């Protein structure tokens, strides 16, 4: 079968809408266009029924009840609502928040904002494997701690955090646990009961649903979590999130969850097989490549690798028929490599050489083989161009060299 390029292998960034999801959404743009808050006519009832159906589909995926699902515009809003909403609501109880360094910016920057408002935030480190030590969480808890926010799985390195263990500690200490579940839901089983999660951020577009719709799971029992709203208005979503609901988006989100729920066992096995094929293929052809983060607790569709001596952006330029991401931030204004890789203790030299592969529903074995071959070609060509590779081959330890700081230093 001929390969169609460009190949998309950046599913952590976003995913295409599944045709089945799109089909479910379409009627809600025109024929069933009602406002789900319109209580007194059939247009409203039809929309409301669709929304409630989606709420139930989403709840099932994470073992919650439908009333615990609050719709938002996406995971950034969900993270903001969880942290700011709980911080404000529980201000009298305390002002301390615990999180960790490899969180998404939607959590880290929200915490930074809360620090400006007088909250205190502990940013726990991660080990070389990318995981938080649950005992560090326990030790960080003070009588003033109101929220622990630890992501379920990381968007760059795919490492899954020990959420169930942290959940147990949070429960025992009576502290709310929020988790950014964006990369985990639909990929691996997430159970808010078993994991003792009190708030879980989700988004549709990472699981083959549309962009612009997300949700926050907010526990109603043991304990009943209350949040101050961050948007004021009509008091939708149990008063926690005002604004007319994005009915077609919500219908799509629900359908996407239903498909993930039904297909997860088969799909995650297929992802794992593709990921292993990619990893083995690369390792068979190239030396001096390193996996970032532990593979033991890992999303089945993620592979983050450093290709020593080859700068990530130049690598992306070479494989321009393949869509992946680089941990090198030569394109960003700061020129700083990935903060996630730095947090793992990956040296900046290797962080600049990292590539994130995100496999997904529509990737094939043929595509994986094509990517392996293209990576081999381009990495080999760029290593021929790399003074660092030449030095390494001469036996010089590049990491121990004294580098001249020049005027171009940044």
């Amino acid at each position, binding site marked *: 079968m001929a390969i169609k390029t460009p190949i998309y292998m950046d599913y952590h960034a976003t995913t295409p809408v599944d045709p089945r999801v799109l089909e479910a959404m379409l009627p809600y743009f025109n024929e069933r266009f009602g406002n789900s808050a319109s209580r007194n006519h059939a247009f409203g009832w039809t929309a409301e029924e669709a929304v409630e159906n989606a709420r139930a589909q989403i709840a099932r995926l994470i073992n919650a009840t439908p009333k615990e699902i609050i719709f938002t515009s996406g995971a950034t809003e969900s993270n903001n609502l969880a942290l700011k909403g709980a911080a404000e609501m529980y201000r009298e109880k305390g002002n301390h928040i615990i999180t960790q360094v490899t969180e998404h910016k939607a959590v880290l920057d929200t915490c930074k904002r809360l620090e400006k408002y007088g909250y205190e935030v502990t940013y726990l480190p991660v080990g070389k494997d990318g995981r938080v030590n649950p005992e560090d969480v326990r030790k960080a808890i003070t009588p003033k701690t109101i929220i622990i926010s630890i992501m379920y799985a990381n968007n760059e390195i795919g490492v899954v955090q020990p959420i169930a263990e942290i959940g147990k500690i949070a429960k025992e200490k009576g502290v709310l646990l929020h988790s950014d579940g964006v990369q985990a839901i639909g990929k691996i089983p997430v159970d808010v009961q078993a994991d003792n999660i009190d708030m879980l951020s989700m988004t549709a577009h990472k699981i083959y649903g549309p962009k612009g719709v997300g949700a926050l799971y907010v526990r109603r029992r043991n304990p009943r979590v209350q949040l101050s709203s961050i948007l004021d208005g009509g008091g939708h979503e149990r008063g926690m999130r005002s604004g007319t609901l994005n009915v077609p988006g919500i219908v799509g989100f629900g359908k996407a969850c239903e498909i993930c729920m039904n297909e997860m066992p088969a799909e995650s096995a297929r992802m794992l097989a593709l990921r292993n094929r990619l990893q083995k293929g690369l390792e068979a052809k190239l030396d001096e490549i390193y996996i970032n983060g532990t593979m033991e607790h890992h999303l089945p569709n993620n592979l983050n690798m450093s290709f020593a001596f080859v*700068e990530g*952006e130049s690598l992306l330029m070479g494989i321009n028929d393949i869509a992946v991401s680089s941990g090198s931030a030569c394109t960003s204004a700061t020129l700083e490599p990935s903060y996630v890789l730095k947090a793992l203790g990956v040296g900046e*030299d290797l962080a600049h050489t990292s590539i994130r592969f995100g496999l997904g529903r529509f990737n094939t074995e043929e595509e994986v083989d094509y990517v392996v071959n293209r990576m081999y070609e381009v990495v080999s060509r760029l290593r021929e*161009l790399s003074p660092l590779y030449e030095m390494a081959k001469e036996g010089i330890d590049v990491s121990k060299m004294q*580098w001249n700081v*020049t005027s171009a230093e*940044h």
Partner: protein
Amino acid sequence: MAYSDKVIEHYNHPRNVGSLPKEDPNVGTGLVGAPECGDVMKLQMKINPDTRVIEEAKFKTFGCGSAIASSSLATEWVKGKTVEEALAIKNTDIVRELSLPPVKIHCSVLAEDAIKAAIGDWKKKRGDEAEAK
């Protein structure tokens, strides 16, 4: 980020890739940048001691496409020039030729530094410490 056609051209067909013998008294080597910063350039030149003309230039670069293009262009430009003429090449000339965007200006600075470092090394080898500054 969109690259200019000239950057892509140099990236796809880099000129003068390779190494010259470091020990050769007529070869000057410049190694600038640092792996932690995501850019390292090695620029070498073989310089005729009598005419002070740069007869050969080779480079190897670890860095983004713009860094590779800047050093490739630098080798093209210095070849056939005298040491003095090569030292007159400014990073802004490289920026203009390759249409580098502001976030990539450091690549051109590094290329200028590499030229200066290679010539400095050659001068040092000639025992001309004063000239090497």
